[in-house]
């Protein structure tokens, strides 16, 4: 059916997101946690994870980043998430059907940054760049599902 075809359009992004998550090991997370000064793109990627999980964020504060002004990351929340042994699993099983249009709007200031992509993140941070692909795939899924779900109902 048309709905099935539409939903299939989101599948490559979702598969890529799962592959990206699978490429991240607990060791990668451990190494990241040990960094005193994580690259700013890592902080921004983790802010996206915070938004999607509806965890606490700091008020907006623009600071100087490597490539211009960026929103200061809510890294305390991120460190807390990383301390949870189930962290990567919680993203694998993320309830993406429950996302709202507001969640996606709150992600826009992050994902619109020119350096918010897998390659730039990979260069700066190694395997945890997979979280960048994951966040983008969640947005893609939400947009596609919004068109498709009414057709299934």
């Amino acid at each position: 059916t048309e709905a099935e075809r539409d939903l299939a359009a989101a599948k490559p992004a979702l598969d890529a997101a799962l592959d990206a998550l699978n490429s991240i090991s607990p060791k990668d997370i451990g190494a990241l946690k040990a960094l005193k000064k994580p690259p700013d793109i890592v902080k921004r990627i983790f802010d996206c994870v915070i938004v999607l999980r509806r965890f606490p964020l700091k008020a907006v504060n623009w600071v100087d980043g490597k490539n211009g002004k960026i929103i200061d990351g809510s890294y305390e929340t991120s460190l807390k998430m990383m301390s949870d042994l189930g962290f990567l699993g919680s993203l694998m099983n993320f309830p993406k059907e429950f996302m709202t249009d507001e969640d996606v709007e709150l992600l826009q200031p992050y994902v619109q940054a020119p350096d918010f992509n897998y390659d730039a993140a990979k260069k700066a941070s190694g395997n945890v760049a997979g979280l960048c692909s994951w966040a983008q795939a969640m947005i893609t899924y939400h947009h596609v599902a919004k068109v498709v779900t009414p057709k299934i109902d």
Partner: protein
Amino acid sequence: MAPATALKDAIKNFEATKGVKAAETEKVELFGQEPPIVKLDSALGTLKACKHLALSTNSIGAISNLAGLDSIKVLSLGRNQIKKFENIEAVADTLEEIWISYNLIEKLSGLDKARKLKKLYMSNNLIEKWSEIEKLQANPELEEVLFQGNPFVDEDNAAYRIQMIKTLPNLKKIDGLPVDVDEREAAQAAEE
């Protein structure tokens, strides 16, 4: 004083980036301005065609000057510094959705005027008491709420959802998740 982007300049930025006239545009995107917008002013009144006003990810301190937003359905104010609902009357005839997660709201007073309100998204605010939720009984059309990350939300998610349905029986979705038949029955049983 910290630097800020004036509303009229944010509107100009949007027009330049998208190549549109804001006054004729249904979705006006003013989110994530650097430096942030801190104040809403009468420049809002020029957005006559706007159905979705995106003002999230700024540092707006209060809701004001909504008069003139003649078509508005979705008011998006997430991730600002707003402490209360006020001055909503000006858009009460059309407003259907308020997105205001990540603010500093403690009370739900001031929403009763929004008679057409269907969706209220407000995760990560400062609501402590269930008695605040009872105030939403004044919004007959309300069908979807999002309250994750507020102090009153119970760790026991099942009990929290049942209590929410008991308080607001018309809800169809809570925190993004549809209310199911079992939950509705459990809420009714708890009434008896």
